[in-house]
C-alpha cells in the first residue's frame, strides 16, 4: 500500500507509469524500484529459491536482496530491489515453472534426500557417463534466468579508464566527507555509490539526517574536482591498484565498466544488516529493519498491516517508530537487550504469526528484525587486508589495510553523524596527502564499533544462505561429516557462494559453524572474499568492440555493384562481382580494374633512403634511377621472408615504398624501428600514405589504351614508359597522381595512386571511358588466380613463419655481396645448408582436380615431402594449377609428387620448370 508523501521519498508522484510483472500490468512511479512498486501493489512473492523452490519476497529491499532476482526485458538476474522501473518494462520471475504461483519445482521439497547437504558432490558424481544428463537437470533447476537469445536486442556496454587521485567507495556521510576533504586539498576525487543518490543511511534516517544530507550534497556539488558515480558499485580491487567500478543507469547504456587506478582508495562501504536465523526466516514478510525503513521513507510503501519487531539495537526501535508512523499495527516489540527472543516464524507462502521466546504467539504479516551489522570487509581482504572479530560489537572490523587503502565510516566503527563526518574528513585529508596533495595532517579520530549483543541464530533451524538455500541443519551436517574448516564448509554446502557473494550470509555462516564445532568465531575465521564483490555482466567485461573497419573510397560503389565482401584484416574488400573466372578472362583478353587501396604505401624523404632500403631489403637499391621501380623482399633477422613490394624513386630524395596490404602496419613499424634504434643518425622521414591514396590497378592488354585516354602529361609509349617505371601526372583531371607500370597479374598493367578524395571519380572515369574496350572491375579472387597463373608468391600464403628467402625462390634478389642487410648472416648460412625446401610450380595430373590448399605432399606412408601453398583452377589454361614447397630432391622439373588430399586420396602432380604457369617469358608484362 502506498503511503502519503514522505519527506525523503524518491518516487516522483507526478510521473506515474505502467510496467508488467509476469505479463500483468502494474502501476508505479518514476523512482520506484521493481521491488518497491510490486510491494506497493501488495505483491509479496518475488522468486523461488534455488534448491527447494520456496517462495521468497523482499528481505533487505536493496541491491543485495537475495529474494528479488528477476528477468527484465530478456536480461536475466536483474536485482529487482535495486533496478528502477521504467514505462513498459516487462519483468518476469525467474526459475519458476510453470508459474510463480503454481511452482512444480517446489515438489523438490518432497524429494528430500536427493538434495541433502553436499548433494552436488554426492548425487552427481557417478556414473561419469551420466554427467551430461546431470548437467541438464541441474541447469533446469537452477534459479538463474534464461540466457538472452541471440536475436534479443543487445545491450550497449562500454569501458572507461579513470585515474583519479582518490577513489571513495561509498557515498554515505563519511564517504562524502572524505571526498570533500580530499577535494579541498586539490585531489581529483571519484565518489562511487551503488544507490541512485548519495547519502547512505541518511536518505531514510529521519528529518535530522535529511537536513545534514542536503548540506553534504550541496557541498559535494559545489566542490570542484569530485566526480560522482551513483548507481555504481566497486566490484573489486586487483593487482596494481586497479579498482573495477560497474556503472549503471547511464542513458543509452546498459552497463559501463570503469577501470580506475586511483592513487588512494577510501573504503566507505558502511554496514550491511544481518538476517536472524530461525525457522521460517525466509518467509515472505520477514524483513530487516533497514528494509522497512527504506520502503517507508524512500518509496512511501507500507510494508505490512500487523508487525512484530525483534530488535537488539536502536535501529530496530527506530524502525518500529517508522512502522507506527506509517500506520502499521506494531503488535509487539521484542527487545533482545531485555532478554527477549523469537523462536519461529509461522506461515505458508507468507508470515502468519511469530512464536516468541516466552511461548506466546503473535499473529502478524510482517516480522522485522534488527539483530546486528556486518562490515563488508571483502573489498579490503581481497587485496591483502585483514579483519578480526570483535565480540563486544558482534562484528568483524578491518585491522590491517592494504597499501593504498584507507577506510572510514561504519566499516571502521560507529558514532554520531558529527563523529562519522569528522572521521571521514580526516581520512580524506590523509588520502589526499598520500596522493601527493597538500592537506592538513590532522589526526584521524577514533571511531569505535558500538557494543552490540551477539545474536546470529535462534534455537530453530533456519536459512543461513538464502540464495543457495543453505540452512543451519545443512551446516551442522557438513560439520558432522568432518568438514570443520570454514573454507571446506563453504565449498561443500555452497554457503556464501551465491550472487550476493556472502555479504549477507558470511558472518551468520561463520557463527553457525562456530557453534556446531564448539569453537569461537575468531578461531573459525572468515572465508576468503574474491572479486567480483558485486555481480558484473559479461557484457560489461567485454565492453564495446572498437576495432575499426577500413573501407576504400570506392567501397560504396562495390556494394552497389554486387561485390561479395571479403574481410581482409581491418579492410572490407570486393572478393568478386559474381564471376571471378570471367573477371580473369577480361584481364587476360581486354582490360580490368581492381581496387587495391589497402596496399601499404609509405612516402620516404631524405638523403639516407638508399642506405635504409639497402639495409632492410635483401636487394640492391643504390643505382635505382629517378623514375625507376624495383621489386624488393624484406626479411627479418632470422632470414625469414617478412614482406615484399615495389618501391619507386619519385625524386632525388623522394621514394614511394609499397608493402603488402596485410603487412603494411608491421612494415611501417619496422622502418621506424630501424630508423629510431639502430640508425638514429640517418635522415629519412617516413610518411604512411596507405589511406592517403586510393589505388587502382588497370590490367590487361588494352590497359595502355584505357589509361592513355585519361592521363595528361605522361607519355605512355612503351619506349618512354617501360615496365618497372613510375611517373607523376594527372589522371581523369585529378592532379598529383602516381602512375606505376608494374605487373602482379602478369599482364601489361598500370597502377594508379590517386589522392583518396578523388578515388571514386577516377574509378568511375575508367569504367565510363573504357566501355568500348570491354573494361570490367575484378576482385581479389580474380587477382589471386591471375597472380598464381603468373607464379607470383604471396608472403604469408606461399611462405610461412619459417620460410627463409632461399626457400621462396628468391635467390635472384638476394645480394650477398652487400656488407650488411637485415637477415644476411642467416641467409648466408641457409645458402650452404642442405635439405632446404623449395617453392615450385605444380600441376595436378588430373586437370580438373584443384587440391585444397595445405594438402600435404607425401612419399609412401611415412614421409611428408612438401605442402600445397596455393591452388586454383586457371581459366586461362583451363586446368588446375598450384604452388607448393617440396624437398630439394623433388624440385627437379618433371618430377611427379604425390598429393595427400583431406579425403585420403593420393593423386599425382608434376613439378613445373618455373613458378609461372602462364607466360613464363614475361612477354605480356613487357608488351
Amino acid at each position, binding site marked *: 500500500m502506498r503511503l502519503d508523501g514522505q519527506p525523503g521519498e524518491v518516487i516522483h508522484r507526478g510521473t506515474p507509469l505502467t510496467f508488467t510483472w509476469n505479463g500483468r500490468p502494474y502501476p508505479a512511479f518514476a523512482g520506484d524500484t521493481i521491488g518497491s512498486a510490486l510491494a506497493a501493489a501488495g505483491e509479496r512473492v518475488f522468486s523461488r529459491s534455488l534448491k527447494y523452490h520456496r517462495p521468497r519476497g523482499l528481505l533487505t529491499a536493496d541491491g543485495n536482496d537475495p529474494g528479488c532476482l528477476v528477468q527484465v526485458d530478456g536480461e536475466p538476474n536483474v536485482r529487482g530491489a535495486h533496478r528502477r522501473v521504467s514505462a513498459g518494462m516487462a519483468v518476469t520471475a525467474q526459475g519458476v515453472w510453470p508459474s510463480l504461483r503454481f511452482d512444480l519445482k517446489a515438489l523438490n521439497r518432497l524429494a528430500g534426500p536427493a538434495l541433502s547437504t553436499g548433494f552436488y558432490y554426492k548425487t552427481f558424481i557417478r556414473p561419469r557417463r551420466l554427467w551430461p544428463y546431470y548437467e541438464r537437470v541441474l541447469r533446469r533447476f537452477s534459479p538463474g534466468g534464461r540466457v538472452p537469445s541471440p536475436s534479443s536486442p543487445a545491450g550497449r556496454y562500454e569501458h572507461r*579508464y579513470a*585515474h583519479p587521485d582518490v577513489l571513495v567507495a561509498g557515498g554515505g556521510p563519511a564517504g562524502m566527507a572524505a571526498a570533500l576533504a580530499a577535494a579541498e586539498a586539490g585531489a581529483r576525487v571519484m565518489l562511487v555509490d551503488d544507490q541512485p543518490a548519495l547519502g547512505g543511511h541518511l536518505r531514510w534516517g529521519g528529518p535530522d539526517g535529511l537536513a545534514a544530507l542536503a548540506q553534504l550534497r550541496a557541498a559535494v556539488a559545489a566542490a570542484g574536482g569530485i566526480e560522482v558515480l551513483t548507481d555504481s558499485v566497486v566490484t573489486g580491487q586487483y593487482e*596494481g591498484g586497479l579498482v573495477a567500478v560497474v556503472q549503471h543507469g547511464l542513458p543509452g547504456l546498459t552497463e559501463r565498466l570503469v*577501470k580506475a*587506478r586511483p592513487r588512494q582508495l577510501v573504503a566507505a562501504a558502511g554496514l550491511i544488516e544481518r538476517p536472524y536465523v530461525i525457522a521460517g526466516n525466509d518467509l515472505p514478510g520477514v524483513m530487516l529493519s533497514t528494509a522497512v525503513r527504506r520502503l517507508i521513507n524512500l518509496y512511501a510503501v507500507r510494508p505490512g498491516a500487523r508487525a512484530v519487531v525483534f530488535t537488539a539495537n536502536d535501529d530496530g526501535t527506530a524502525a518500529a517508530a517508522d512502522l507506527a508512523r506509517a500506520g502499521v499495527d506494531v503488535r509487539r516489540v521484542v527487545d533482545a537487550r531485555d532478554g527477549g527472543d523469537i523462536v519461529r516464524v509461522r506461515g505458508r507462502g507468507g508470515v502468519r504469526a511469530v512464536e516468541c521466546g516466552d511461548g506466546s504467539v503473535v499473529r502478524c504479516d510482517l516480522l522485522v528484525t534488527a539483530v546486528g551489522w556486518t562490515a563488508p570487509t571483502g573489498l579490503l581482504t581481497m587485496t591483502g587486508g585483514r579483519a578480526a572479530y570483535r565480540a563486544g560489537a558482534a562484528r568483524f572490523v578491518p585491522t590491517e589495510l592494504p597499501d593504498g587503502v584507507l577506510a572510514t565510516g561504519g566499516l571502521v566503527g560507529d558514532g554520531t553523524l558529527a563523529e562519522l563526518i569528522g572521521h571521514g574528513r580526516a581520512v580524506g585529508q590523509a588520502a589526499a596527502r598520500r596522493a601527493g596533495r597538500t592537506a592538513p595532517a590532522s589526526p584521524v579520530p577514533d571511531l569505535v564499533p558500538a557494543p552490540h549483543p551477539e545474536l546470529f541464530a535462534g534455537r530453530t533451524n533456519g536459512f543461513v544462505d538464502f540464495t543457495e538455500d543453505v540452512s543451519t541443519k545443512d551446516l551442522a551436517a557438513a560439520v558432522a561429516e568432518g568438514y570443520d574448516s570454514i573454507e571446506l564448509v563453504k565449498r561443500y554446502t555452497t554457503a556464501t557462494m551465491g550472487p550476493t557473494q556472502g555479504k549477507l550470509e558470511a558472518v551468520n555462516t561463520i557463527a553457525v559453524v562456530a557453534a556446531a564445532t564448539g569453537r569461537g568465531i575468531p578461531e573459525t575465521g572468515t572465508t576468503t572474499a574474491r572479486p567480483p564483490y558485486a555481480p558484473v555482466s559479461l557484457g560489461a567485461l567485454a565492453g564495446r568492440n572498437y576495432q575499426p573497419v577500413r573501407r576504400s573510397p570506392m567501397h560504396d560503389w562495390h556494394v552497389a555493384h554486387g561485390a561479395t565482401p571479403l574481410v581482409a584484416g581491418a579492410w572490407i574488400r570486393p572478393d568478386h562481382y559474381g564471376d571471378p573466372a570471367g573477371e580473369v578472362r577480361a584481364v587476360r583478353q581486354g582490360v580490368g580494374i581492381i581496387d587495391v587501396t589497402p596496399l601499404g604505401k609509405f612516402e620516404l624523404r631524405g638523403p639516407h633512403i638508399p642506405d635504409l632500403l639497402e639495409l632492410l631489403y635483401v636487394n640492391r637499391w643504390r643505382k635505382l634511377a629517378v623514375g625507376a621501380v624495383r621489386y624488393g623482399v624484406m626479411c627479418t*633477422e*632470422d632470414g625469414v621472408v617478412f614482406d615484399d613490394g615495389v618501391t619507386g624513386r619519385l625524386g632525388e630524395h623522394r621514394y614511394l615504398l609499397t608493402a603488402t596490404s596485410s603487412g603494411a602496419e608491421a612494415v611501417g*613499424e619496422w622502418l*621506424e*624501428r630501424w*630508423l*629510431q*634504434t*639502430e640508425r*638514429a643518425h640517418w635522415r629519412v622521414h617516413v610518411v604512411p600514405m596507405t589511406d592517403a591514396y586510393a589505388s587502382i590497378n588497370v590490367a590487361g592488354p588494352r590497359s595502355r589504351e584505357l589509361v592513355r585516354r585519361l592521363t595528361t602529361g605522361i607519355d605512355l609509349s612503351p619506349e618512354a614508359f617501360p615496365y618497372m617505371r613510375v611517373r607523376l601526372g594527372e589522371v581523369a583531371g585529378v592532379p598529383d597522381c602516381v602512375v606505376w607500370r608494374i605487373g602482379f597479374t602478369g599482364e601489361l598493367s598500370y597502377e594508379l595512386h590517386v589522392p583518396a578524395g578523388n578515388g571514386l571519380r577516377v574509378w568511375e572515369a575508367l569504367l565510363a571511358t573504357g566501355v568500348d574496350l570491354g573494361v570490367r572491375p575484378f576482385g581479389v579472387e580474380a587477382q589471386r588466380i591471375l597472380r598464381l597463373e603468373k607464379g607470383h608468391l604471396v608472403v604469408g600464403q606461399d611462405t610461412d613463419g619459417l620460410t627463409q628467402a632461399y626457400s621462396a625462390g628468391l635467390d635472384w634478389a638476394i645480394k650477398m655481396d652487400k*656488407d*650488411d642487410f637485415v637477415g*644476411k*648472416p*642467416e641467409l648466408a*648460412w641457409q645458402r650452404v645448408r642442405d635439405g632446404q625446401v623449395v617453392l615450385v610450380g605444380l600441376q595436378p595430373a588430373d586437370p580438373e582436380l584443384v587440391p585444397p590448399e595445405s594438402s600435404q605432399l607425401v612419399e609412401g606412408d611415412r614421409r611428408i615431402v612438401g605442402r600445397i601453398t596455393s591452388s586454383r583452377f586457371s581459366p586461362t589454361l583451363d586446368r588446375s594449377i598450384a604452388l607448393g614447397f617440396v624437398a630439394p630432391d623433388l624440385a627437379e622439373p618433371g618430377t611427379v609428387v604425390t598429393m595427400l588430399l583431406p579425403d585420403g586420396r593420393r593423386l599425382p602432380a608434376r613439378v613445373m620448370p618455373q613458378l609461372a604457369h602462364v607466360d613464363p617469358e614475361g612477354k605480356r608484362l613487357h608488351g
Partner: protein
Amino acid sequence: MVLLPCPHCGPRDAAEFGYVGERAARPDPGAATPQQWRGYLYLRRNPAGWADELWLHRAGCGRYLAMSRHTVTGDIRAVRDAATGGAD
C-alpha cells in the same frame, strides 16, 4: 589501465603502447658466429627484476622507447626515446 611514462606525451594508458621486447645489441653481421647471432635472435635474460625493454608508443607519438622496467612490480625507473642514445 596502467599508465606508462612517455617522454614525449606524458603518462599514458599502457594499451597505447606495444611491447617490443628486451633490448638486445646487434652483433657485427660480418663477424658473428651462428651462436652469437642466435643469441641475439632468441636468448633473453627474462629477469624477475629490472629489465631493459624496448616499447613502441604505437597510439601516441609513434616513437620507440627504451625503458628500465621492473618485471615484478611494474615500476619504471628510467625511460628515454630510443633514438637519443644513453648509457646502455
